[in-house]
């Protein structure tokens, strides 16, 4: 009796752990290779930081530097950061099909669109998605389509959106003033 109960508990724990892993895996998007984009781009940035690389990076963050300190706070609880960004010499030199495959993944259960921006003036399209489990956010995806730049950001893990917002003022990102008018 005791043995079967222990076995049952073990199976429950394993299934929960498996679910958590699966849930984390769901928050990670399958990003295409973007070989075509890379070939056309004048500049490209590709970042793949899994949990081990994040831990390695964290060891070299200098808490005395404000941006490093901000980074350290953000990555606590994260299990992955994946970024693909391409800059082109001409407008909209990238095909929309590549973006479509990523958007399709964001229509899966769990993902919620937080922000959708379509700027006719600047022709900037930005979509921000979050993946929520209960009351916890365990995934973030940003697809930013600008005339000469295309960027996909996928962050996996326990995300603090407030801290992400506080990235403004760091890393060369201008602070957004609420009364900014143009």
């Amino acid at each position, binding site marked *: 009796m005791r043995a079967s109960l222990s076995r049952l508990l073990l199976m429950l724990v394993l299934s929960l752990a498996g679910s958590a892993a699966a849930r984390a895996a769901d928050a990670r998007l399958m990003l295409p290779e973007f070989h075509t984009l890379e070939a056309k781009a004048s500049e490209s*940035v590709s*970042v793949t*930081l899994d949990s081990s*690389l*994040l831990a*390695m*990076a964290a*060891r*070299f*963050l200098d808490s005395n530097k404000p*941006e*490093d300190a*901000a*980074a350290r706070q*953000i*990555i606590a609880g994260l299990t992955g*950061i994946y*970024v693909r*960004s391409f800059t082109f010499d001409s407008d909209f030199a990238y095909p929309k099909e590549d973006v479509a495959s990523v958007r399709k993944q964001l229509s899966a259960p769990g993902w919620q669109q937080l*922000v959708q*921006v*379509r*700027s006719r*003036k600047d022709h*900037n399209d*930005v979509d*921000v998605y979050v993946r929520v489990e209960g009351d916890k956010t365990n995934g973030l995806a*940003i697809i*930013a389509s*600008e005339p000469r730049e295309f*960027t996909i*950001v996928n*962050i996996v893990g326990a995300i603090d959106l407030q801290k*992400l*917002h506080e*990235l*403004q003022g*760091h*890393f*060369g*990102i*201008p602070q*957004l003033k*609420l009364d*900014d*008018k143009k």
Partner: protein
Amino acid sequence: MSDDLEKQLREALRHVDPPPGFAARVSARTQSEQRHRWLAARHRWVPATLAASVLLSLLVAYGWQLRHEREQGLAARQQLIEALRLTGEKLDLAYRGVQDASKPTVPPDTGDT
């Protein structure tokens, strides 16, 4: 009897000289052994040098590994900073977009007054 016996024993057991040339033979042997020891010590350098080389190689490899790990770590940090910069930039783009969209649109001044 006992005292006499002990006295006789002492007399019987006085020191005797070793055969002539004993000290010279000892000296020759010690010098020969010293030469052999010197030669052996020279050869002992071979395993010692080998051990030292192995240790040095290990230290060099360890140092290389540390340097490699440091390079990897610094590269990972750089990637992280870049990723967070891009994330912040795109979020900022989104926020600006939201802010722009929330501004009331002001009709153009037609000058009809």
